[in-house]
């Protein structure tokens, strides 16, 4: 494996109607890094995620994932190549049990054919068992095994968030995108999540790209941070650099704040 970046985004632009949601953004995300994208409301962060995962097609620019061009490809195709994500407002499959939710993401890794499924061939049993075992492992890993057979929609909020991560991990991703994973969590849950994210990176060797509003979380776990404002990347750097950059303070606190902070 080369040490080329896992994800390269080159000059990507996306407009909706007259509004430029993402404006000429370029990023390189090295392997095994926890990388955060921050920015005020409406800065284009979620649109940026949707561009990477293929839900939107960029107007300009290109995206390389693991050395392969994925610009304009189908989301399922991209996901099968090892890119998993969670959603800002949880999108679990409510009427399936927790473990089934995780097994859905094993789809591409389960090698049963249609005939196998109908005839219950040994391969079917083998593959199903494998999928189930791996899914249970992941549930255990996210401390959800006690909920395995409950319907996803009946889980409490915090567990739904964790389940979404477990589901994403089932894809065996090289890159995991987390869209506001701490939204709606209380401080204790957030702290727990924080450890978990670092753990995922350390245990599974997954690169993590996250969008988050909770600055405490972002600053404590990210190794690099990119700041988006009005669809443009205004800065990229370490948490310290970002925290002390007047442009960031301006973007967040408003104009005039930078002078106040530096004086």
């Amino acid at each position, binding site marked *: 494996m080369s040490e080329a970046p896992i994800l390269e985004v080159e000059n990507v632009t996306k407009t909706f*109607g*007259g*509004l430029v949601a993402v404006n000429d953004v370029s990023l390189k995300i090295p392997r095994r890094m926890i990388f955060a994208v921050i920015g*005020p*409301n*409406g800065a284009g962060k979620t649109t940026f995620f949707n561009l990477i995962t293929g839900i939107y097609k960029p107007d300009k620019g290109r995206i390389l994932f693991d050395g392969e061009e994925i610009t304009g490809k189908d989301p399922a195709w991209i996901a099968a190549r090892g890119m998993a994500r969670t959603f800002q407002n949880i999108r679990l499959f409510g009427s399936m049990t927790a473990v089934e939710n995780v097994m859905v993401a094993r789809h591409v890794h389960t090698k049963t054919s249609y005939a196998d499924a109908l005839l219950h061939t040994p391969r079917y049993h083998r593959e199903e068992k494998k999928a189930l075992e791996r899914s249970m492992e992941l549930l255990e890993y996210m401390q959800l095994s006690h909920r395995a057979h409950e319907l996803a929609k009946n889980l*409490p*909020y915090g567990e*739904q968030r964790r389940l979404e991560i477990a589901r994403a991990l089932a894809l065996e991703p090289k890159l995991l995108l987390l869209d*506001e994973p701490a*939204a*709606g969590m*209380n*401080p204790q849950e957030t702290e727990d999540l924080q450890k978990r994210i670092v753990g995922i990176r350390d245990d599974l060797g997954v690169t993590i790209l996250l969008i988050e*509003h*909770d*600055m*405490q*979380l*972002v*600053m404590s776990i990210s190794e690099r941070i990119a700041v988006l404002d*009005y669809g443009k990347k205004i800065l990229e750097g370490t948490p310290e650099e970002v*925290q002390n950059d007047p442009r*960031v*303070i301006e973007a*967040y*606190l*408003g*104009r*005039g*704040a930078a002078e*106040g*902070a530096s004086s």
Partner: protein
Amino acid sequence: MKKVLELKNVHTYYGQIHALKGINLEVYEGEIVTLIGANGAGKTTTLRTISGMIHPKEGEVLFEGAAVHHLPAHLIVKRGIGHVPEGRRIFPRLTVEENLEIGAFLENDRHKVEERKAEVFDLFPRLAERRKQLGGTLSGGEQQMLAIGRALMQDPRILLMDEPSMGLAPVLVDLIFETIAELNNRGKTILLVEQNALKALQVAHRGYVLQTGEITLSGPAKELAENEEVKRAYLGG
């Protein structure tokens, strides 16, 4: 001074998320009160709870002394609460003029409607130039003016403004804040939610700081502007 709006121990949920955890807040006649806080702290939720787009699970919203939290949005508007929503939400396929007229939907007196329209055009001459243009074709700043103008067409007794500076060029941000001050001079009571905290605190009389659904700080705007915690609320540092 007359108390226009009061929130008493308001709890609001989005599905399972406990978004507001017991908000208490007051706005007096003639004031600009600002509500600041980080992304996702619950600012917008507070405004949406006031104007009836979501209903609180607990607590009450009092408008001029009467509870309104159980009313649907269109009846709350009728009482005299104007709401400039987040993201402007103008009607993209109505013309500027139609957008304004729909703002005055509840006003049946043609004369008054024309009067208010003239007032809005006086406030925002740019809109007058573009009155026949479709809302969706306006620039961001013009859309924001239109959204404010549309709410003014209701002649509300309190104006809720949700992030009016969001996504605007700096020069337009200044203009919007000038307008807010001007409106207040003309006698409007305003509850302002802003991400641009320092600007907001400059124009407001009083402020509240919201963090993860709770009010952590409140007081005169000048004092808040000096406060270190305000900065922490934003940057988490």
